[in-house]
């Protein structure tokens, strides 16, 4: 296995729900230490693609390959066992649990013997706080704090740190910055960079081109269930990517038509269409 072989690859993946074809012939690859940005408008098939990668859905035809060998994920657990971690928009954490407890949910560290095994709060808190601080979130210093008291960015960071701690090799981030403010989003992007520096393969799903360009090495644009463009960093400008995502109708054209309207209507924008 050469160092540059993809960790995870999709080969001609199709997915249909009954008569509706959602994904057509998807070919994607992601390598260790690389961020693949998956761009697309709402309804382009991003969510279905994530669900296939994380084992929620299975492809109708086509194959998933890991380290060059074909694999299948019959359920989310199987994908997680192979080192694929999915972090959802709100972090997928539990608001009324402490940081330590939510970090270790399902794999709680215990001390003691037999039926009297007790949850090791001190150990869990110390490991969780260290893992998050290693990602540069120094504001989290008490593992007893409830997750609900953290900001959106901190929750994302906690979820990413958790995935990395438990041995994730591929990190799927589902619109991590969509619900965040500018500063918080920058925070999350720094953490994406940190994960990449540690040699993880990151699949970063977003529709914010700015965020994608800040961290991406490789870009794929999905339009109506197909990969419309697949290019490397620096090959396309921000305007070109935005135009691609809009599905052919260029932003420039749109701006021009609005400008034209405004110049003939005394500077007023067009009335709402509905």
């Amino acid at each position, binding site marked *: 296995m050469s160092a540059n072989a993809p960790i995870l690859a999709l080969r001609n993946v199709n997915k249909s729900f009954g008569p509706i074809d959602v994904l057509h012939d998807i070919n994607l690859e992601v390598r260790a230490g690389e961020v693949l940005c998956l761009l697309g408008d709402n309804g382009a098939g991003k969510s279905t693609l994530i669900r296939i990668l994380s084992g929620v859905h299975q492809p109708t035809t086509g194959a998933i390959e890991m380290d060059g060998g074909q694999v299948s994920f019959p359920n989310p657990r199987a994908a*997680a066992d192979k080192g694929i971690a999915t972090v959802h928009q709100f972090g997928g954490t539990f*608001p009324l649990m402490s940081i330590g407890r939510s970090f270790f949910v*399902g794999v709680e560290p215990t001390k003691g013997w037999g039926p009297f095994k*007790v949850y090791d709060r001190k150990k869990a808190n110390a490991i969780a706080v260290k893992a998050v601080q290693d990602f540069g979130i120094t504001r989290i210093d008490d593992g007893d704090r409830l997750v609900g008291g953290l900001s959106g960015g901190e929750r994302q960071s906690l979820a990413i740190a958790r995935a990395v701690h438990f041995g994730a090799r591929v990190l799927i981030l589902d619109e991590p910055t969509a619900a965040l403010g500018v500063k918080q989003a920058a925070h999350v992007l720094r953490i994406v960079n940190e994960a990449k520096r540690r040699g993880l393969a990151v699949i970063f799903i977003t529709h914010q081109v700015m965020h994608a360009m800040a961290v991406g090495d490789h870009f794929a644009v999905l339009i109506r269930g197909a990969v419309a463009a697949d290019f490397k960093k620096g090959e396309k400008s921000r305007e070109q990517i935005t135009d691609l995502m809009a599905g052919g109708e260029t932003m420039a054209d749109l701006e021009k038509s609005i400008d034209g309207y405004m110049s003939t209507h005394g500077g007023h924008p067009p009335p709402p269409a509905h």
Partner: protein
Amino acid sequence: MTDSKTTVPGASAGGGFSLQNIFRRPEAGAAAGFLIILIFFGYFGVQNNFLTALGTSTWLNFASKVGIIAIPVGFLMIAGEMDISVGALIPAGGIVLAMASELYGLNIWLSLLLSLGIAGAIGYVNGMLVTRTRVPSLIVTLATLFVVAGLNIFVSKKLAGTTQHSVQDAGPVSEFLLGDYHTLQFGADDAPFIIFQSLQSSFFIWIVFAIICFFVLHLSPWGNWIAAMGGDQQSARNAGIPTNRLKIALFMLSAMASALVGMTEAVLANTASTTTQFGMIFNSIICVVVGGVLLTGGFGTVTGIVFGTLTFGIVFQGINFTTFDKDLNLLFIGALLLIAVLMNETFRKMATNWSSSKK
């Protein structure tokens, strides 16, 4: 604690004892509510023996029966589910015990196991229906409430020809453990020093049960799973928690706890009836909510539920010790519930916003 740089990561606060630490605990609301209610009824009921050992036993005995059911119902609520079939499982527990021991001459302990087994089976059905169909548990258990209530009467009449069963004394050990009055006092008979007086066996069962449940919910890893399930079921399943099996186990626990309460009542009163205890459904839910459990799941404590049950017990029974009009009883309970929910909300916000490095 004001300087975050000097705190050891993860090990700060928590262990120490300070006012701030008390108020960041969400069950603080339930404990504070209990104290207020205790002082209130203690003041207005002192002339009528509210604070004597016998007066205390009155509401403790009442609270213990609700309490045994409230803890597993609370577990279910923390896990994001409801169980209202308990109202029919209390009489079911009692009549199965009565019929097995009286009608078929079964040993009292075998009858008890049989009764727990049948209750467990009903709980299993509840759990299976909820996890398989994904119909809300409120509706599923509402249905089983009526199904079991109907079965109670039907089977009772078919097998014994009556809906009222007698339960004979089945021996000193079972009486002692399940349904008797206990008194502990020292000193001379004419001026005894009373520790407790006329406490029913169910009180001691409740305390032991609460300690076991406290261990499960707060010390063992299982407690984390229950809370995770109610907080975010999808994430909990993805984290490898067997959510379905755990949920079924919780439904079985609440059914068996209800049957146990029915059995303690049957042994104590030497009679068992098929009457469905609709009141206990609401009572258990009130105790759980007053105890600070989040109605939408994801959070709750055993300590909170126990305090909630004690508070409810005082309010329900305490009015008899005061000079207030007894007809106001239900109004008091409604007000208690409302105040408790509002207080819990405040305490929960304080707990969520708490941070060791508040600037």
